[in-house]
């Protein structure tokens, strides 16, 4: 099974910034560990949601607004692709993502072929 793993930071970035240096290093190490996990294809590191631009098209008009599509707290903060046997295996990887334990979350989406 192929899964798209969406990372939501929630409060995690603030909470991690307030951590002692040793624990911050652990956070980086944990992300590194995720990237090196067999089956993981890391996504490009995502910039902060406050720098996002949202585009809609109404009629023939392109509407551009500042910020993410959802609220700042609800915005996607990162993603990676995971090839795993089943959902339980994906849940185990998701649980290792630091955001998940610092007030954010990971959403597991099975990848699907639509065409």
């Amino acid at each position, binding site marked *: *099974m192929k*899964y798209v793993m969406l990372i939501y930071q929630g409060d995690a970035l603030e909470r991690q910034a307030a951590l002692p240096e040793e624990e911050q290093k652990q956070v980086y190490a944990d992300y590194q560990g995720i990237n090196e996990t067999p089956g993981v294809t890391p996504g490009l590191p995502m910039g902060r949601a406050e720098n996002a631009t949202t585009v809609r098209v109404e009629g023939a008009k392109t509407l551009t607004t500042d910020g993410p599509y959802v609220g700042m707290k609800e915005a996607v903060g990162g993603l990676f692709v995971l090839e*795993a*046997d*089943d*959902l*339980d295996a*994906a*849940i185990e990887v998701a649980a290792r993502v630091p955001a998940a334990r610092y007030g954010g979350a990971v959403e*597991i989406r*099975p990848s*699907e072929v639509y065409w």
Partner: protein
Amino acid sequence: MVTTLDGIFREEWGRVLATLIGVLGDFDLAEDATQEAFAIAADRWPRDGIPANPRAWLMTTARNRATDRIRRERVLAAKLGMLVQVDPGEPPMNATTFRDERLELIFTCCHPALAVEAQVALTLRTLGGLTTHEIARAFLVPERTMAQRLVRAKHKIKAAGIPFRVPPPHLLRERLDAVLAVVYLIFNEGYGGRDELAAEAIWLGRALVELLPDDAEVRGLLAMMLLHDSRREARFHDGEMVLLGDQDRSRWDTGEIADGRAELERALALGGRGPYVLQAAIASLHAEMPCDWVQLAALYGELAHLTASPVVELNRAIAIAETDGPEAGLRVIDRLELDDFRYLHSTRAELLRRLGRTDEARAAYRRARDLTDDGAERRFIERRLGELASATGSSRGRHRRQQA
């Protein structure tokens, strides 16, 4: 040995379906094929007699139906030029040693990636063999809603890759607790009066004991359900609720009490001291006369410690009121943050009434009444309010228990 048609269908549905899902890896296909096999059996067996090995007959027939369908679809797909693939032949299935995969099935149905209401519906449909119509009726939702719920859940199992297996050891306890929670939830729905759900939960509980005989909590849950269910007939009189202390004990099901106590003994012998075992022990003590309130208070204390549940703490307060007096019970109650819980107020009312603090008791009963939408409970509280009005303060000393 089950010999009636209904009995065989009841026993075999979950087994046949589970084995087929294991072989085919597809809930829908397995369910359709199992359904077809049972329909053929319902048509033929009354005429031709029940085969010597009904399970093998049902499994083989269902498997053949599924194989036919896979072939038909392959042929169709090939004709449409969509798929060029070699026929892999029949799915492997040994007709003499069908593996019992009901555990795999129930763990899949109760996977935490499914919503609890979907877990409940799937468990009743697949393992319990209830029809969509029956499940919808039991949960008071339109049949179409229930059908959609089941379709969505089955689709998610497939699309999200929820595994069909017994969880590995490091996940087993947590996942088993989720399974037990589903069975308990089904039982509780039934306890409110929908008897068929309570019976279904007990049936599932027995199946789990058969599949996991060495787990104390599995036995504890079954024991607890049996002990509560034994009082079913006595809990209502002419549609009115009767509290435990006022129940006609001749209407208790002594067979169920004995079964429940035997399960409890086995759970305790396995060293069980988990929430279900404790609740079963509590239910067992409640069935005794006179009631051992000291031990009850201790068990509620242990359970409150495990679950951190204020509702359990409320029950402990009731036991303490019996051993140390109503004031002691009230002191425990007034520490609880359960202001929207009707039983907190009805319990307070009862203890206040015993203390002769009639005005406060009346206010507490009214609060309980306003929080209740159950007709029988409202009428019960109205009766209590009526008694308080007619015998202001004089009903002191009439001890009644709150547990129903």
